[in-house]
Structures are given as structure tokens and as C-alpha cells.
């Protein structure tokens, strides 16, 4: 092991001064331009929590309405808006963002990094989320909230008479937030893979990081199908393209497929991070390492995969062949295995250690008990015949709340109690916490357990009232009382958070005596790690003596900030050997401006204001260009810098070694999933019709094949540009110009097929599908041209050179995906109609 640094007290003070200056959070209004993970994480968390309270109030409003039969407290339409917004907000504006918030806040400290690799991307995600969230929530005050249920089934939600502007607000507002989620997934995956402290091999990673890695991967495959669905849906609402209109060959079931391919993994996307918090809390309060580390990895990975084989269990009553249903029933039972493993791991850890029953443990254990009940009813509804009875009744409402509140909300509250000292340096009150827990635990069960019975007695979900003689009134009254007790518990918790608390007399960074790295951080300093330590244990604070003192004395990596820039270490994926000193973006207005402008695009589109849409799109484009040009792939003042411990590391790396390459790769995997969903749609329509073209003209063979060939040539030219760049700029520039021209030709050829064959997208679903897939590919081609032009300008201005070729390498990677997309697109569009059975 390298010899640790040794600095005199004066040197240390000077180092700290420089670090403090570099990582300083700006004051005044500029505070909001901060991109530091601790600010973004905090804003994200507080905002998501506020949305949760808002959605909770909507829940109480519904419970008040349902308390007695024939109630007229609120109108049917307001009730519809309330339950739609309640579900939507809880899922999209609380459950997913709160885990992004926690991840952004905690991960750098857990991994021993100063920052995640793309702090400005996190800031961009936050501002997108805030704007999109306010837009969606605010709609109810104008009586314009979505009202067709949180899964927006057509034909109800495509009916403009019934679902007015609310459906557009849902589609566009949430698409915008989905973009933010994918941004967070990129940040989290690259952060976990590449930014761990030296020595933190993959068998040393904190459990939280394992879970988050899997969850971020799931986001990449789960959110894009919904984005694809949103595109189809909005095209139908805005331009009358009949994707879900049966009279013109469409099929509402496609939406159900796309929604639930997202929707079921989503349940695990919110559940796994909460369990990840438990995997941090349980060892601390058992005062021993977790039992069965590898089994947790099995459970996380296994659940992540299996959760994609469950989506049709939301569609058991749609008339699909029963053999298909049986596959999904089987997978739904199988997912109980890894889920159960996690719970047994926690029990085993508690049994093997000495459990301290603190407030976080109380919430954790209570949550797991509730979750287990929800899991058991889950096994019940995974059985097709039982589901036919229980579908769309209050039994399902009970099941999903048991799963989500037990599996997600209680552990999150446990996590907030646990990590509150990490965030603020102060503990929440034990006494208040116990009161809050018992109110919430009892209130929850009183509120939701009777719903199993009202459901089995036939009460359908989403009814705004019911007659007296059905015998549902007692259960509903009990449920309402329970809901308000539960809300009192939540209120107690909120008051505990906000009531003034005295500063502790003694500085104690690790009040729970936890073993993981994040507890070395001082909440009063915004640099995260004072120096980036070498890790040799899963629980370094328990097993590496002197760690805290050595970190604070700056004896490890990056103890200084001489360059005046924010720096963190990049390490290798498997063994975490230091390979790069990464400079990350600092305070900037650009992420906020681009997010707000992009938000403007979505909002203006909702109201069909075309000119503002265009203006906002131009601002978005310019701000993203400014962001890229001034904030990425900067040529450093020196090849290598001293990172401490006698080691020098490069600052600029390109290709697969760079974080930017990984980010591109991950983004394009998500993008590819959305494309695959559109192709799935094409073949879906083929299966539901005897002749899926319904006699309409296709795009022909010539134009699609021409487009295919031209796209492949453009791809080869881009690769040639990358290769030629290694010899000098001239050849590279020629290849880029040629690539741009060929791409433009390819895009025109791609659109020429459907255009010259007079395919009218409003006439039938077949031309609409052909158009949407062709447009998707052409848009990717257009973005490809912009990227080629960016590299060309970079080459002309000396930004892209033989040695500094990050931009062109990342663009080539993008083009691999474009070529793949184009080949599939035009082969399917041009050739498949010929083999149509």
C-alpha cells in the first residue's frame, strides 16, 4: 500500500482553505445555481416530500368523501381528478424522485467520492422535476387535472370530451420528468461503476450501491417504453393518429402493454432503494456486518430481472390467451423467492447481532411486517383465477398500499430518521419518533386492512360514492378513521423534522456508531470527503482503525484543490484502482436554464402554443450547446496531475475509459429500449389484425432500402472521421462533412417512402405506425448531424485534436446506435410487408 501523506498543521489549513473555496456553495440568489450533490439531493428530497404531502391530502379528501354512503362532499369529477393525481403524484413525483434524491445525496459519501460524475446533470434533473411537478400538481386548482386514473387507459383517456387538457398535462408533464429520471439513472450507474474510493472492489461496495446500480439499470429498461407510449398517446390526442382507436385499426391494449412494461418494474424501482436503506440500517443497529452479502446481491439482481416478467399480471382480465397469462403468473410467483431472501437476510442479521430497537429500526421492522402482508396478497392476486375475482376492487387497493407503504414509505421514513444527523448534524427526537411510528403503524392497518374486505364484498376501486344497502359503509368508515390516524402520524413526523433543535454539545459525526464510509463526512463542509480514502473493508469505520483521523488530516488522495477546480477520482470498475482525476462541473446557471426552457417546450405543447414551443426549443438547444462547449471535454493545463500519495493521474481520457463515453452508452441503451417499444408496437398491430396494412399502401421497398444504405454509409463515414482524426485533422474534417451530407440525404430518403406513397397517418394505424418509426429514426439522424457538426467545429477550433478526441469518440458511439436503429427501422418498414402472413 502506498505511504500516506503527512502534512503540517499549516499546510492542512491552507489545503482546507483551497478546498473550501472550490466547493463553496454560493450565497444569495446564486444559492440556486449550486450543483453540489448535497444541495441538489436536499432540494430534490424536500420537493418530493412536499409533493407527497400534497398527494396525501388528496388521499384524505377521497377518504372523507367515502366515509359515509351517498356522500356529496366533493363532486364525481373532482373525485376522479383527486384519485388520478393522488396515484400519479405518489408514483412519479414522490416515490421515484425521493430515491433519486437519497441516491444523489448519499452515494458520493458512501462511495468515497467528492461528487458524482455529472453534477450539472443532477441539477438539470432537479429543475426538470420541480417544474414538471408543479405543472402537473397545479392543474387541479384550475379544475384541469388528469382524471382518467394514474394509468390513463384509452379509450377513456383519449376521449377529448371526457379527459380534457388534463390528459395532455399528464402525458407531457410526466414525459418531462421521465427524462429527469433517465438522467439520474445515467448519473447513478456511472457514479457507482467508476467513482468508488480506491480499493472499494465490487465485493466491498455498500449494499445501498448494489441496489442502486440495479435500480438505475432497471430505469433504463422500464421508463423508455412509457416514453414511447406517451409519444403514441400524445400523437393521437394532438394530431388524431389512431394508435388506440379501434375503429381505425388501433388497439388500446398496446397502451396497457407499454404502460405496464414500465409500471411493474416501477414497483420494484421504488421498493429496492427502500430495502437498500434497510440494508444499511439493519447492520448498524445489529452492530455487525450483514449476514449473506452475496445473497443480497442475488436478491437485488434477481428481483431486478424478474420484475420485467410480471407486467401482464395487471392485464389478466383483458382476454389474452390463458397460456400467456400463465407465463406471467409463474414469473409473479417466482419473484417472491428473491424478495423473501432479503427479508430472511435481515432477520438473520438481527438474530446474529445485538439488536438496538431505535426509531429507524422500529419503522424498518414495522414496514417489513406491513410489506409481508402485501407480499402475501400479492401471491394471491398473481394467481389468475383469484385475480379475476379481485381485479379492480378495493382488494387491489389494499394490496398495493400494503406493498408500497410497507415496502417503500416506512423504510424511507426509517432512512430519514437514520440519516437526519448525516444531513444536519442533529438527531430527530426518539420520543416524537415513537409516537409518530405507532400512529402511522396503527393508523395504516386500521385504514387499509378493512379494504381487503370491502374489496371481497365487491366494492370497485375509483367509485366516488356507494349506496347504503351494499354493506360497505362500516368498512369505509373504519378505513377513513384509520387514514386520518395515519395522517396524524405523518404530521408528527413532519413537525419533528421542522421544529427547532439545539445544536449538539459534542461534535459526533457518527451518532449511531455505523460502519460505512458516509459517516466520516462533516455536514458543515461541502467538500464531502476531506481526502479520498483507501478502502479495505465493507465496514471501514468498524474495521479500519484511524480511518476518520487520516481522512480528516488529508492523508489520502486529493487532499488539496490546487487547480482551483472540483476534482474527484475515477477508479476501475472491478477492483477500483485509481485511473483518472476527473474534473466535474461547478456552480452554473446553465442546467437550470436548459431545464426551464425544456419545460417550456413541454408546457407550450400542452396548450398547442406553437410559437412559444419553438422559442423554448431554440433556447433549450442553445443552452445545451453552451453547456457542452464550456463544461465538457475541456483541454487541461497539464496531462497529469498529482493526486497525492505520490501518484499522478491523467485528467483527460477518452473512449471507454471516460465517464462521458459510459454516459452516452447508457443513455443510448435507454433510447434503444424506447425504439424497441415502437417496433414492438409495429408487430403488435401485425398480430391483432389479419392484414395489418388493412389494404393501405406501404412505404415501398426502394426508399426504405435507400435510407438504410445511406445511414450505414453515414455511420461508416463517422467511424472514418474518428480513425482519420488519429492521423491529423484534415481527413477527419472531410469525413465529417461527407457524413453530414449523407446523413441529410438518408433522413430525406427515410421520409420519402411514406410521403411519396401518400400514407395518411390519420386514416389507419398502419400508416401512423410507419410514420412514427420513420420519424423516430430521422430525428436520431438529425441529432447525429448536429453531433457531426459539433465535432467539425471542435476540430476547426482546436478543441478536438489527435490527443483530445473525447467528442468524436462519443459521437461515434452514438452513431453505432443510430446505425442499428436505422437498419432495423428500414428493414422492417420496407421488407416486412412482403413476408406478411
Amino acid at each position, binding site marked *: 500500500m502506498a505511504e500516506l501523506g503527512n502534512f503540517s498543521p499549516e499546510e492542512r489549513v491552507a489545503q482546507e482553505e483551497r478546498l473550501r473555496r472550490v466547493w463553496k456553495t454560493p450565497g444569495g440568489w446564486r444559492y440556486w445555481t449550486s450543483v453540489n450533490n448535497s444541495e441538489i439531493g436536499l432540494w430534490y428530497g424536500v420537493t418530493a416530500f412536499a409533493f407527497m404531502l400534497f398527494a396525501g391530502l388528496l388521499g384524505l379528501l377521497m377518504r372523507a368523501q367515502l366515509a359515509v354512503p351517498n356522500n356529496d362532499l366533493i363532486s364525481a369529477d373532482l373525485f376522479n381528478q383527486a384519485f388520478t393525481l393522488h396515484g400519479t403524484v405518489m408514483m412519479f413525483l414522490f416515490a421515484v424522485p425521493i430515491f433519486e434524491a437519497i441516491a444523489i445525496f448519499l452515494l458520493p459519501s458512501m462511495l468515497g467520492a467528492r461528487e458524482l460524475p455529472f453534477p450539472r446533470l443532477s441539477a438539470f434533473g432537479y429543475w426538470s422535476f420541480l417544474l414538471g411537478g408543479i405543472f402537473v400538481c397545479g392543474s387541479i386548482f384550475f379544475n384541469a387535472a388528469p382524471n382518467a386514473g394514474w394509468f390513463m387507459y384509452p379509450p377513456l383517456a383519449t376521449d377529448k370530451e371526457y379527459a380534457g387538457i388534463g390528459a395532455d398535462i399528464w402525458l407531457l408533464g410526466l414525459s418531462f420528468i421521465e427524462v429527469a429520471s433517465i438522467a439520474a439513472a445515467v448519473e447513478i450507474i456511472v457514479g457507482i461503476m467508476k467513482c468508488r474510493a480506491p480499493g472499494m*472492489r465490487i465485493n466491498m461496495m455498500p449494499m445501498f450501491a448494489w441496489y442502486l446500480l440495479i435500480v438505475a439499470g432497471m430505469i433504463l429498461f422500464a421508463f423508455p417504453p412509457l416514453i414511447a407510449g406517451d409519444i403514441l398517446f400524445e400523437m393521437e390526442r394532438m394530431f388524431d393518429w389512431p394508435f388506440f382507436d379501434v375503429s381505425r385499426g388501433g388497439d388500446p391494449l398496446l397502451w396497457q402493454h407499454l404502460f405496464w412494461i414500465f409500471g411493474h418494474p416501477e414497483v420494484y424501482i421504488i421498493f429496492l432503494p427502500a430495502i437498500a436503506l434497510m440494508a444499511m440500517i439493519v447492520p448498524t443497529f445489529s452492530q455487525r456486518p450483514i449476514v449473506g452479502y*452475496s445473497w443480497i446481491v442475488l436478491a437485488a439482481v434477481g428481483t431486478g430481472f424478474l420484475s420485467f416478467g410480471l407486467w401482464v399480471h395487471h392485464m389478466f382480465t383483458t382476454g389474452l390467451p390463458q*397460456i400467456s397469462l400463465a407465463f406471467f403468473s*409463474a*414469473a409473479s410467483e417466482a419473484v417472491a*423467492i428473491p424478495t423473501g431472501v432479503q427479508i430472511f437476510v435481515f432477520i438473520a442479521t438481527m438474530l446474529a447481532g445485538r439488536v438496538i430497537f431505535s426509531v429507524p429500526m422500529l419503522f424498518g421492522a414495522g414496514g417489513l411486517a406491513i410489506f409481508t402482508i402485501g407480499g402475501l396478497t400479492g401471491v394471491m392476486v398473481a394467481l389468475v383465477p383469484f385475480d379475476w375475482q379481485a381485479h379492480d376492487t378495493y382488494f387491489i387497493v389494499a394490496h398495493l398500499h400494503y406493498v408500497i407503504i410497507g415496502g417503500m414509505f416506512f423504510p424511507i421514513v426509517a432512512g430519514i430518521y437514520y440519516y437526519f444527523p448525516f444531513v444536519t448534524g442533529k438527531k430527530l427526537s426518539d420520543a416524537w419518533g415513537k409516537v409518530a411510528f405507532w400512529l402511522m403503524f396503527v393508523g395504516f392497518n386500521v385504514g387499509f386492512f378493512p379494504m381487503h374486505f370491502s374489496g371481497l364484498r365487491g366494492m370497485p376501486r375509483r367509485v366516488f360514492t356507494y349506496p347504503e344497502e351494499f354493506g360497505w359503509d362500516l368498512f369505509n368508515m373504519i378505513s377513513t378513521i384509520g387514514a386520518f390516524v395515519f395522517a396524524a402520524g405523518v404530521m408528527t413526523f413532519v413537525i419533528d423534522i421542522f421544529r427547532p433543535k439545539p445544536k449538539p454539545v459534542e461534535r459526533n459525526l457518527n451518532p449511531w456508531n455505523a460502519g460505512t464510509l458516509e459517516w466520516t463526512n462533516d455536514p458543515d463542509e461541502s467538500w464531502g470527503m476531506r481526502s479520498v480514502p483507501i478502502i479495505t473493508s465493507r465496514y471501514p469505520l468498524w474495521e479500519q482503525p484511524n480511518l476518520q483521523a487520516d481522512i480528516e488530516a488529508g492523508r489520502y488522495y486529493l487532499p488539496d484543490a490546487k487547480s482551483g477546480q472540483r476534482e474527484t477520482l475515477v477508479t476501475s470498475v472491478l477492483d477500483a484502482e485509481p485511473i483518472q482525476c476527473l474534473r466535474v462541473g461547478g456552480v452554473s446557471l446553465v442546467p437550470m436554464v436548459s431545464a426551464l426552457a425544456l419545460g417550456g417546450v413541454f408546457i407550450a405543447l400542452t396548450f398547442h402554443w406553437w410559437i412559444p414551443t419553438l422559442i423554448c426549443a431554440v433556447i433549450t438547444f442553445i443552452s445545451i450547446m453552451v453547456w457542452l462547449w464550456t463544461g465538457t471535454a475541456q483541454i487541461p493545463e497539464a496531462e497529469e496531475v498529482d493526486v497525492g500519495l505520490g501518484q499522478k493521474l491523467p485528467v483527460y481520457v477518452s473512449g471507454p475509459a471516460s465517464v462521458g463515453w459510459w454516459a452516452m452508452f447508457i443513455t443510448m441503451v435507454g433510447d434503444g429500449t424506447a425504439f424497441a417499444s415502437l417496433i414492438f408496437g409495429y408487430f403488435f398491430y401485425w398480430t391483432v389484425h389479419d392484414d395489418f396494412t388493412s389494404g393501405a399502401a406501404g412505404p415501398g421497398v426502394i426508399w426504405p432500402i435507400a435510407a438504410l444504405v445511406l445511414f450505414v454509409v453515414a455511420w461508416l463515414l463517422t467511424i472514418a472521421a474518428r480513425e482519420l482524426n488519429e492521423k491529423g485533422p484534415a481527413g477527419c474534417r472531410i469525413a465529417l462533412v461527407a457524413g453530414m451530407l449523407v446523413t441529410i440525404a438518408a433522413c430525406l430518403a427515410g421520409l420519402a417512402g411514406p410521403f411519396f406513397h401518400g400514407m395518411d397517418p390519420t386514416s389507419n394505424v398502419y400508416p401512423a405506425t410507419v410514420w412514427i418509426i420513420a420519424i423516430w429514426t430521422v430525428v436520431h439522424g438529425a441529432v447525429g448531424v448536429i453531433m457531426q457538426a459539433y465535432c467539425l467545429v471542435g476540430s476547426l477550433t482546436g478543441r478536438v485534436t489527435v490527443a483530445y478526441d473525447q467528442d468524436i469518440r462519443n459521437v461515434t458511439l452514438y452513431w453505432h446506435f443510430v446505425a442499428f436503429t436505422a437498419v432495423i427501422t428500414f428493414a422492417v418498414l420496407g421488407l416486412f410487408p412482403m413476408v406478411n402472413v
Partner: protein
Amino acid sequence: MKSVIPREVESLWTLFTAPTIWAVHFIGCYATVAIYCAKAASLDFGFDTVRLLLAGFTVFALAVIVLSAWLAWRQWGFGVHDPPHDEPTRKGRTLFQGYATLLLSGLSFVAVVYAAIPLILIAECQR
């Protein structure tokens, strides 16, 4: 001499081999059956052919999972070392990878078997 069985691969991706095979098998079964049931009228073979085809596919998927499990078992040193594999060495990391991959292969094997059960019990599309 070149080994028929691949040598140890230094990659994180090996961890995901078995679950990926489960996913391919699952989607393969679902897509085949969905297409068959939608297009049965214009096809000149029966559902039993589909079942046989998918049975073969299942055996193949299970065989690949067993192979992946064997490779993982080898990487784990054939079970000579006990978990938790938290040593700060390359060896410790490799053993952990082997063990976790072996566990995942087990889960994937069971999940593939689960997915195949309907093929035994259900003899037609049953719309």
C-alpha cells in the same frame, strides 16, 4: 491448448448471464405463444408443435444456465472457500463474483422451470 470451456472472464457482466438467459427464454416463450395464438388460423401446425419447440428451447436455456453455474462454481473455487468473501484482494473479489453468479444461476434455473410449467399444463391457447 485452447480450452473448450471459456477461461475466467474479468468482467462484471458475467454476473448477469443466467438472469439474461431467463429473460431471453421468458420473452421467447411469450412471443412465440402470442404470435402463434394470434395467427393460428393461417398456420398449418398445431399447438403441440409449439409446445415441443418451446420444450426444446427450455432444455437449451437450462443447459446454458447449468454451464454458467459450472463456470461460476469454478470461479468460486468449487466451494472450497467460505463466504463472506470480503477480503480486500483480487482473489476475494473473484470468489465473491463466482459465488454471487452461482446463486443467480440457481434462481434463474428455478425461474425458467417456473415459466415452463404452463407449457406442461395448458394444451391450447385458451382465449
